[in-house]
């Protein structure tokens, strides 16, 4: 996550913001500066994740705020995700069908392959990428605005921890709703794909909707991915929001970075969990 176009310094310890002069002064510093910035970035994300999980384990969860976030992240994204997955499901089936027909004349296993591909890869990953654009940007903009208008400091003065109030509800809602929306995405893409297969390739519904290639391992990989993505989006976006510096321009950078860095986090997690999935639960 080194896409850092802005000149903003970032402070990672929420309890003690530290602004450092990160202008390289020597050749060695110049060469190691990006690595150092990346390391600090990772440490900041890890610290925020640790503090948030600690707060959840200690029961410091604001129910009202969590329900509001569940609604905002979940219900607010349903239509957006549904439309995306309808289009994706249809395109995927048509493209895969056309490619397959170049090699094989029959498509009886097209549905089985598509369902496995959706479960292992496309349903959770595309759903999370869509959520990163909508939810990640919203989280960073909201928290970033609170930071630059001193509302986060006002929270601390009121005896409330910003992590408890701002990050915990978003992490819980992010994980639960990414999980739910991933399964919804699978269902919707499957429905749309079935329609496309039927109209484009004259495939019967019973032939296309074939779960023979999908086993418990696929659902486990899908669930793991959804949980990891659902945690990554709010943590990355909240961290970008909490380290906002420099007024409205800073909020703009925080929002952009939240989307870019959340997307990169999703892709990296996809790589790691896909490799893990293929080793731990080899596909049928």
């Amino acid at each position, binding site marked *: 996550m080194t896409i850092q176009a802005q000149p903003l310094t970032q402070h990672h310890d929420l309890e003690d913001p530290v602004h450092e002069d990160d202008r390289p002064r020597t050749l060695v510093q110049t060469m190691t500066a990006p690595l150092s910035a990346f390391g600090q970035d990772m440490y900041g994300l890890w610290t925020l994740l640790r503090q948030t999980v600690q707060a959840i384990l200690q029961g410091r969860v604001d129910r009202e705020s969590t329900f509001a976030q569940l609604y905002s992240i979940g219900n607010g994204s349903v239509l957006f995700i549904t439309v995306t997955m309808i289009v994706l499901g249809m395109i995927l089936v048509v493209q895969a069908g056309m490619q397959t027909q170049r090699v094989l004349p029959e498509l009886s296993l097209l549905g089985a392959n598509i369902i496995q591909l959706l479960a292992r890869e496309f349903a959770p990953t595309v759903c999370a990428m869509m959520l990163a654009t909508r939810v990640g940007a919203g989280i960073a903009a909201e928290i970033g605005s609170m930071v630059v208008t001193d509302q986060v*400091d006002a929270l601390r003065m009121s*005896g409330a921890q910003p992590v408890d109030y701002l990050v915990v509800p978003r992490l819980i809602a992010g994980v639960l709703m990414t999980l739910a929306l991933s399964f919804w995405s699978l269902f919707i893409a499957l429905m749309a794909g079935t329609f496309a297969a039927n109209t484009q390739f004259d495939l019967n519904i019973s032939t296309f909707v074939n779960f023979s290639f999908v086993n418990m391992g696929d659902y486990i990989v899908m669930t793991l991915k959804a949980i990891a993505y659902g945690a990554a989006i709010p943590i990355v976006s909240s961290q970008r929001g909490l380290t906002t510096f420099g007024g409205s321009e800073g909020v703009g950078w925080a929002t952009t970075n939240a989307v870019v860095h959340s997307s990169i986090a999703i892709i990296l997690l996809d790589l790691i969990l896909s490799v893990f999935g293929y080793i731990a639960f080899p596909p049928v």
Partner: protein
Amino acid sequence: MPIHFKNLHKAFGPKHVLQGVDIEVRDGECFFVIGASGVGKSVLIKHLVGLLRPDSGDIYLDGEEVSRLEEKALYPVRKKCAMVFQNSTLFDSMSCVENVALPLRMHKGMSMKDALIEGERRLEQVHMHEFCKAFPAELGDGMRKRIAIARALTLDPQYVLFDEPTTGLDPISARRVDKLIQELSKNFGVTSIVVSHDLTSIFTIADRIAMLYQGHVRMLGTQNDFRSTQDPIVQQFVTGEAEGPMEV
């Protein structure tokens, strides 16, 4: 002295904002910190409640060094030392009474119901009771500021830090805020540190004034000291002249 900033240094990147600031604030006084924009006035008072940490130097509050306390150890400090922020900083998602009730719930552990009852009482004191259920976005700047002051005073603090309390207010609302700050000192013995550019406020209610310039305390004294000073930089600030020796 209940509050003592001792040789305080703070830098943001290459900008060395505070370069050895020494200020002592007396009990019950209304102490003003003045200076040009970006000179570090807000930065200075944020150090007192641990919202910023100094690069070096010490801060004493009632004899206790507070600049290196951990977040949890700062709770008692923030309980007796409230802060009214420049932009009111009410929480948009909460109604006015919920904003005022928040410190009661967090610092005093009150139930939501009790905190809301106490919050309504506190809003009555600043004549904002009828706006209990309103949200901050529905109110004007002056009203938001009064609610922010009610929130700051809800824990009956010994010390109140005001960050530009009259900025953006009409003259009448500004003088009302001045009067409130003065009453806090005179009637309740509250020690106030006020960061301000407002010359009317400064020369109406300040007991003592410190002017920050280029990271140092340029002058510290009473209203009369500032009126009669021969320091050209202080003179320029006090008279509000556009041309002069002051580098802004």
